[in-house]
């Protein structure tokens, strides 16, 4: 690791102020992704701001019947929370399908949203990567792209977002709450939180420099059946090839997908077209409408038919078909 200085922030706003004062700084909470990347010198912050002691580790009901999840609630605690298991089961299911027990004990809600791609060329310092080194090129396009994006990608980047949790958060219409160095707060709908790569794949979210995530809030429960299906190269402790989060209720089907794009993928217009139809019919509408514009890069062409089959399988499972 490159040398860095370290401080424990005393408040969320103080953390944001420190991040502005040290331009090459990073917040650290669980650290399971950041330290991995720092050891490889893919991330080289010169100052770390430890945000583990800000009291952002509680899960509370909100006045509108939803749930407010502190930014630093550990993945294990979020998956095991009684209200989450009962009312937002798709979130529990997504969380426990990711990483290992040890990592989930450390990894946080906010950190999970901010984790970086596992594109092999992002990790390989000997290769060009527009995300790691803007303007250097993309070795993944035309390279070994088996687990990379088929939707929303660009000529600059075909990386995927690796999170399972974020897929469920997208499905549940979560809002990402933040504070900046002036104490100004805002809540960003998760649909707008992650960016598509475009020609600036190194900018992954809409967070401004120094802006700190304080919580992720969920609207009131949807009801319905909650499912999370993850297809991967081994049965446990692997990133998704394709994953699907679904809540299927009376007359509605919500679907979000992981492993396909630079952000959790969801097409509400397709869900609207499928609403009110019979199960088999709705599945066909979604299997077509959710993936319009999909384009493989060769090795990852299998993801489109796989994702479509997952939609049909999940609808079948939810409706007993």
């Amino acid at each position, binding site marked *: 690791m490159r040398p860095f200085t370290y401080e424990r922030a005393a408040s969320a706003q103080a953390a944001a102020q420190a991040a502005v004062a040290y331009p090459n700084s990073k917040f650290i909470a669980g650290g399971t992704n950041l330290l991995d990347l720092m050891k490889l010198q893919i991330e080289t912050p010169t100052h*770390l701001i430890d945000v583990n002691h800000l009291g952002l580790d509680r899960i509370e009901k909100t006045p509108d019947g939803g749930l407010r999840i502190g930014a630093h609630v550990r993945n*294990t605690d979020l998956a095991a929370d009684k209200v989450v298991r009962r009312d937002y089961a798709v979130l529990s299911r997504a969380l426990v399908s990711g990483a290992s027990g*040890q990592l989930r004990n450390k990894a946080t809600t906010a950190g999970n949203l901010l984790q970086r791609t596992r594109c092999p060329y992002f990790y390989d310092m000997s290769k060009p990567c527009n995300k790691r080194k803007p303007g250097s090129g993309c070795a993944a396009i035309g390279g070994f792209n088996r687990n990379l994006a088929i939707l929303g990608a660009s000529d600059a980047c075909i990386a995927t977002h690796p999170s399972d949790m974020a897929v469920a958060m997208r499905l549940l219409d979560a809002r990402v709450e933040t504070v900046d160095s002036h104490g100004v707060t805002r809540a960003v709908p998760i649909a707008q939180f992650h960016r598509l790569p475009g020609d600036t794949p190194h900018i992954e979210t809409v967070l401004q420099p120094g802006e700190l995530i304080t919580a992720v809030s969920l609207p009131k429960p949807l009801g319905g059946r909650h499912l999370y299906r993850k297809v991967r190269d081994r049965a446990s402790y692997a990133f998704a090839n394709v994953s699907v989060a679904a809540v299927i209720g009376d007359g509605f089907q919500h679907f979000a997908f992981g492993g396909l794009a630079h952000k959790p993928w969801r097409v509400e217009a397709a869900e609207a077209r499928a609403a009110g139809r019979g199960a088999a019919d709705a599945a066909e509408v979604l299997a077509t409408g959710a993936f319009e514009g999909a384009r493989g890069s060769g090795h990852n062409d299998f993801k489109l038919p796989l994702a479509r089959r997952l939609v049909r399988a999940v609808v079948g499972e939810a409706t007993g078909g």
Partner: protein
Amino acid sequence: MSDPNDVTRRTLLAGSAVAAGIATAPALAREPVASRKTSSRMTPKMPVSLTVNGQAEALTLDPRVTLLDALREHLHLTGSKKGCDHGQCGACTVIVNGRRINSCLTLAVMHDGDHVTTIEGLGSPEKLHPMQAAFVKHDGFQCGYCTPGQICSSVAMLGEIKDGIPSHVTDDLTHVEFSDSEVRERMSGNICRCAAYPNIIAAIREVHEA
């Protein structure tokens, strides 16, 4: 398509050439390269207080020191192992404030005031922890390198089942119970290159049933 291995080889060769260059330059060879390169950029060391296996420890550490390196290199508790150093193998698993974590993926300075239990704190050769005794009885290892991590992980993992924390193979999220498939899923963060997995599961099952 380009072959990723090709460039890895080239990188390796480039690295070797640099190393060879240093070895043949007497002026450079007299001074350790690492210290010369980093001396101007060293960061101040920081005090860190830990309670390790019940004993208070006061350390002064570079902030880069991971909890694993603090345990092994500074406290000389070499039971916890460095396998991959990237949170993939689980050999470094220790229990911090009652939770199992990868000690390689966390900084010691982040644990000021924390309670750490390592394999040395679970039991001793004279008085084995029940999980250690079960691993011996069931031959839950061959080379033994992953074993301290496996045992720390197992002990904490049984606590997670008891606490009702669900896993990927839990059918009913509100009803968590012990099974071999639960153990396999929950122990997937601990790799055993000798593939002693069936015996590890037998050892864990015995402790669970005791």
